[in-house]
């Protein structure tokens, strides 16, 4: 199976859409909050951030993303009392949040709407289980556990490039550290290499600290036509690129090498073409990547072109992706410390990148981020879909 041809691709979305407000609820095991409560927290924070007082009048359309919700778009329209306007729900595995954002951006770029709201959310902690549900809805493809799916690159990658759990540990330790600096993260605890090694194994090579927490959460963004951004704020952030790429199921794809996940490379090629990125390492100042498991983050460094294939462990060792490194990744602690309410995650990453680009990230602020681009990345399914969004100030 060959990668899609970029020749067929259109001009992209660069500089047509601005983000003028972002919001994020407290992520965690939100036992006393309903999905609606979290949606209201995130959306009203975004309204305030954009200076919108009468959202029902100002917002023209809502794009919402959720994987677990059984209720469709009405859950969001009812929570926010967004009636007499288009409210749609998007679902695309772990890239759901980024895809909802893409629909919102396209709605503006198409000329259909001037101001839209994007809300990603999920509430997995109402199901009564710790961790993901073990699905028994078929007899093939068992066990269906996300850790087991994402671990399938480990044996092959470790053998070819000599990496090990010690390299993965450094990613977990970094993300736990960053999470202590993010007010809305779930886990705010530093971990040591010893903690990492003592933890139980979930699916080899992933132990407890290689795996994202499971939490409830919601995040929101308000998008408008780029030429209207100044009427909301002076430091609006522009959408430079947004891409979603589907991929074959790697468990049956006859050409998968289990050294990378194909859709990440495809989405990066597309997004970089849209955003005019030729040297990602130099042009991108901060990145939020999908660390559902530590190895997913490691592979993503390479598949996004932050470093050469096979070289991630050297860059991890030299601290390149730490907060004070050359290209800080998962500055808020990522899925590791925020957990992964699936529909919320992509929008939560955009929230963090907007704060970083506006110099509002507090103790985790990356120096010089304002002058560069910010990238967010999700990958989900087996994995079978990847989403990338690139944002910038000018």
């Amino acid at each position, binding site marked *: 199976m060959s990668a899609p041809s970029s020749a067929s691709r259109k001009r992209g979305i660069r500089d047509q859409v601005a983000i003028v407000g972002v919001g994020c609820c407290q992520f965690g095991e939100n036992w006393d909050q309903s999905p609606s409560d979290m949606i209201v927290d995130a959306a009203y924070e975004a309204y305030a951030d954009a200076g919108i007082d009468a959202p029902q009048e100002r917002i023209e359309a809502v794009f919402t993303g959720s994987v677990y919700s059984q209720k469709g778009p009405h859950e969001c329209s009812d929570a926010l009392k967004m009636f007499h306007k288009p409210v749609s729900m998007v679902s695309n595995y772990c890239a759901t949040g980024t895809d909802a954002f893409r629909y919102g951006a396209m709605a503006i770029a198409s000329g259909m709407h001037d101001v839209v709201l994007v809300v990603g959310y999920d509430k997995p902690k109402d199901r009564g289980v710790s961790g993901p549900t073990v699905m*028994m809805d078929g007899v093939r493809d068992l066990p269906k556990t996300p850790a087991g799916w994402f671990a399938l690159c480990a044996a092959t990658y470790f053998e070819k490039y000599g990496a090990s759990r010690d390299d993965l540990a450094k990613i977990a330790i970094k993300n736990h550290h960053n999470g202590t600096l993010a007010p809305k993260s779930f886990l705010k605890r530093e971990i040591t290499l010893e903690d990492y090694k003592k933890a139980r194994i979930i699916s080899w090579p992933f132990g407890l600290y290689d795996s994202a927490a499971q939490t409830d959460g919601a995040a929101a963004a308000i998008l408008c036509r780029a030429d209207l951004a100044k009427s909301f704020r002076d430091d609006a952030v522009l959408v430079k690129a947004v891409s979603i790429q589907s991929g074959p199921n790697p468990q049956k794809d006859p050409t998968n090498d289990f050294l990378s996940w194909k859709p990440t490379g495809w989405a990066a090629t597309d997004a970089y073409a849209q955003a005019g990125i030729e040297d990602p390492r130099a042009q991108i100042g901060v990145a939020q990547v999908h660390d559902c498991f530590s190895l997913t983050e490691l592979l993503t460094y390479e598949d996004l072109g932050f470093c050469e294939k096979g070289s991630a462990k050297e860059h991890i060792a030299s601290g390149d992706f730490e907060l004070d490194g050359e290209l800080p990744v998962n500055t808020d602690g990522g899925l590791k410390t925020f957990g992964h309410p699936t529909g919320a995650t992509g929008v939560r990453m955009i929230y963090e990148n907007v704060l970083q680009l506006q110099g509002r990230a507090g103790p985790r602020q990356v120096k010089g981020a304002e002058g560069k681009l910010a990238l967010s990345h999700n990958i989900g399914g087996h994995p079978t879909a990847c989403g990338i969004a690139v944002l910038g100030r000018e």
Partner: protein
Amino acid sequence: MAGIASYGAYVPPTRLPLSAIGGRPAKEGGPEKAVAWNDEDAVTMAVSAALNCLRGLDRSKIDGVIFASTSYPFQEKQGAALIAKALDLGRDVRTADQSGSLRAGTTALRAALDAVRAGSSKNVLVVASDCRMAAPGSPLEANLGDGAAAFLVSAENPIATIDGGHAVADEIVDVWRTRQDTFVHSWEERFVVQEGYVPNLSDVVSGLFEKLGAQTSDFAKVCLYAPDRRSHGTVARKLGLEAEQTQDPLIGRLGNAGCAFAPLLLAAALESAAEGDRLLVASYGDGAEALAFTATEHVAKLEPRRGVSWHLARRFAIPNYDMYLKARNLQVTEWESAAGPGLSATIHHRERDEDLALIGQKCNACGAVQFPNQRVCETCFAKDDFEKARLSDRIGKVVTYTFDFFFPTPDPPTIVTVTEVDGARIHIQLVETKAEFVKPGMPVEFSFRRIHMAGGRPNYYWKATPAEESA
């Protein structure tokens, strides 16, 4: 002349040391019994034994399947048709189940021999398989073992021809299980032996001798079902069997494999039979049944089979009784195991080729083999242009793997692989090995297993096992 053209066995490699029963520490080297694991039952063992019987032979000529079992999981729904599907035998096959008695295995074998002799069937597969449940703590717990034996009955190149058979019927409440019972019941052991086993076995063998004009000394090997070692010895002495004539009843190694017990002993006898050897097999249950065979010149020509000795040599001792109870679903748990509404019967029906027979497809345009079946080719995008590709009897190789500690199982981790077979990639569990032996590139074969009990009924699919020498 009608006879047995091939045979195969299956004995689960997991063994419970009898010393471990009740939770005591297991002693290595002592008596043990074969235990069907959490993903095995009478049907999966039957399919494995049948695959071993049919290895290297043309399956397309089989026109009948008789499945004998007292422990087949369904009361209503045939096992033979399921086994025929798993073996990809096509639809023009007469199928029948034989049940209800511990001598169902020899009854099925004799029915097949009669059908072939009468000319109403040409090649009949007979599979006897049992996985009987003993209540924890009961005397039967140390006695019952699990296993299956399969025979191809045919008039074409038989390795042993049938000389005759004899049966006696008897009504006795010795061993029984009602529809409502999970566990087998038994009346007092001495009563069972003295009033049931010994007189019935003696009567049936002397009846057969009378019919054939034969005597004990004519037989190279005599295979006797036996509830225990001592009663086996009692009947052997009554018949005047010499040690070398006595087929080892494998008590303390296999256990009492129910209606598969006597057929397993016959399979074991066939392994070492030479041309002209006469063999006798006798089973017990609500009477008794005995069959006599003579080995032919073809016995030396049959490719070595995975028979009883091959299976007895491959064993893993279960480390403790607790794990045995978990594997047999005999432990109290908070939740029903793998509950839920179960699989949709319509989805199961649409996917029966893939799930039950591990049949994928080969693209006629580009030749790529793929699994599961799909309308558009994964490789060249050609549409609706495929032929069937049976993968169950192919050798695959592990591409990558993980060890999943999260998935519920009696003995975590579950070894999960992506396995390549004829170019197709399958996400599939790997069993009968340990994590430290798994490597990319390792060759595997495929084994029919009970994948879960969702919906309260057994659901079957295949797993990979390390590839082994044929026999």
